[in-house]
């Protein structure tokens, strides 16, 4: 399945964890890319940073826990995970307690991140 000379994919996550099925879809795409040995990075921006909230409890919603899914990403070699620093600060997120290790980026650094990838998938 994987083509020679795979492209570097950047999955941009804009949706908060339980607001849209696209929140889950973005992580599924990242997992699929990793399963086919394609280099993939994740960038959480805007409301999407809420996916990194620690201690997510969605039992009452009857849907899968995205925090737990996020925590499993490093097991699939998805380790390039970046966060919009401004949005994280806006929501007073404690990134040290996030489900997986991330790197916070300012606007210039995000622009540079986008430049260093071949394809951008915005969810």
């Amino acid at each position, binding site marked *: *399945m*994987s*083509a020679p000379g*795979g*492209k570097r*994919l950047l999955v941009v996550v*804009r949706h908060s964890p339980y607001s849209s*099925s*696209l929140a889950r*879809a973005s992580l*599924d*795409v990242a997992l*699929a*890319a990793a*399963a*086919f040995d*394609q280099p993939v990075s994740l960038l959480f921006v805007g409301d999407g940073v809420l996916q990194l909230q620690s201690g997510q409890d969605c039992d009452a919603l009857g849907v899968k826990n995205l925090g737990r899914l996020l925590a499993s990403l490093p097991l699939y070699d998805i380790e390039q995970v970046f966060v919009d620093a401004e949005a994280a600060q806006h929501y007073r997120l404690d990134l040290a307690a996030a489900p997986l290790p991330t790197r916070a980026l300012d606007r210039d650094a995000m622009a540079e991140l986008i430049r260093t990838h071949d*394809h*951008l*998938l*915005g*969810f």
Partner: protein
Amino acid sequence: MIYSLLVMSSPASGQCALTAARFARGVLERGHSIRRIFFLDAGTGNGSATAIFPQDETDRLQPWVDLAEQHSVELILCIASALKYGMLDGTEARRHEKSAATIHPAFTISGLGQLVDAAASVDRLVTFGG
């Protein structure tokens, strides 16, 4: 240049899905090629053979069917999304004991690997909706 498209917009809301189909035609008319069009989430509704739109509006299905039949463009519906939206081919309808298939035969149901593969082998991946 080789393109792939990712379509996440429903045909029933807004212009985005129709814009995607017109973009695809524009790509071909300018001499480029399309590796694959992958439909995800609400975008899988574009494959519906049973949706009925007002007669005085632009047909939402035919532009896709034309791309497949006239230009051999591959149209893939994400299986996880398709099932949620009731988009079934004959195999899935039988597997889930539903009374009928609901997608147009120009579309194929498959997995996210097809999106990854579509991205890996093209110059441009263009996303519509989301």
